[in-house]
């Protein structure tokens, strides 16, 4: 079976180890829900945000945790959000996918004011995550992983992006 990894091979893929601290944070955020589906959603969203945030730290992109909807337990109760706020740029959604999935789910309620989407494959068995790529905007709720652009394009895009005129969260 063709997986996310196979058709992304030509691009720069970054594999981030998922450590105990990330797992514990995801566990804590998700433990607020009785509903298993919601808890699972929050768990994976949290991991995706933390993984991308770690990559950003490594390459010197400044983020703001307090403005990140994916790490705000009110906003992630109300929306299926994995938002990571990039300083002076805006909110980026870090959408988790499982290793067998071919699509990334992008709910409609998170599209407002979102500067783009990063697909993150979460491999729980091997305690790692792969940053698959980036897309600026989406039409559908189901995004084929093949549509994701390489991270390089994301950096060019971010570089050109103007400061948002207003920031509210």
């Amino acid at each position: 079976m063709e997986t996310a990894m196979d058709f992304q091979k030509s691009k720069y893929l970054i594999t981030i180890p998922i450590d105990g601290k990330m797992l514990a944070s995801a566990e804590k955020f998700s433990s607020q829900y009785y509903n298993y589906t919601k808890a699972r959603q929050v768990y994976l969203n949290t991991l995706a945000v933390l993984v991308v945030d770690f990559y950003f730290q490594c390459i010197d992109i400044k983020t703001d945790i307090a403005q990140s909807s994916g790490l705000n337990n009110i906003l992630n109760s109300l929306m299926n959000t994995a938002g990571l706020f990039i300083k002076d740029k805006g909110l980026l959604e870090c959408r988790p996918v499982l290793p067998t999935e071919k699509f990334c789910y992008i709910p409609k309620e998170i599209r407002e004011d979102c500067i783009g989407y990063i697909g993150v494959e979460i491999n729980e068995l091997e305690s790692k995550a792969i940053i698959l790529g980036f897309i600026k905007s989406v039409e559908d709720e189901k995004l084929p992983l093949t549509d994701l652009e390489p991270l390089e394009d994301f950096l060019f895009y971010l570089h050109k992006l103007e400061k948002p005129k207003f920031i509210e969260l």
Partner: protein
Amino acid sequence: MTLEELAILAKQAVIKAKDTSLNEEARIQALLDKQLALTKLFAELTNKIDNLPKPQTDASKYIYEEALQETYLYICKNIDRYQPEKGSIMGWFVFILKMRKITAFNLINWGIMSTYTYTNDGVELDLCDIYTPDANPLPSEKLLAFIKEDPEGLLQRALFNNNANANFQAILLKKIEEDKSWEEIAQEFKSGATHGPLYSFYTRCCKKFSPYFTKYLFE
């Protein structure tokens, strides 16, 4: 490009980005070049490291993932100090990883796993302390109860298209309690053929009321 070449490229890019004599425009360009070079190096490194054998026991795995993370961060932040004449980038990486593993082993808190995360300012914040105070009933249940009660009537007064039925409270409950799709919700409110404006309204209200919920529930 080989890993060595990428490492040298990243080193040069990082050194240039530190140059304070550059003008604004050149500085921004140097930052982009640095991020591009580090991304390529990072990708190639993770590709190589991912193929190395991994520890099998849970305890050593926990140390391994954490040490690996710290090593990536260390290499990215210190690549300008890389001296290719003294050894390969892989050699340097493995050396740092071994040191980190020893440190991680000594520092590990075997009783409880900590949940702190690094922030970009170099200050460690405990995410859970800030955002998820312990509470009984569960915060999600408290939030739902609060939404239903709407003590000040603010949620009921936030109307979509002046439609008294389509208020924020009613939409919230359909969305988070009944888990309905936007198409279904739009149909129920007969808000017209398109549901686009409805979920935009929802997003705006969520952001607007988020501090209000936080204030009532956690302060």
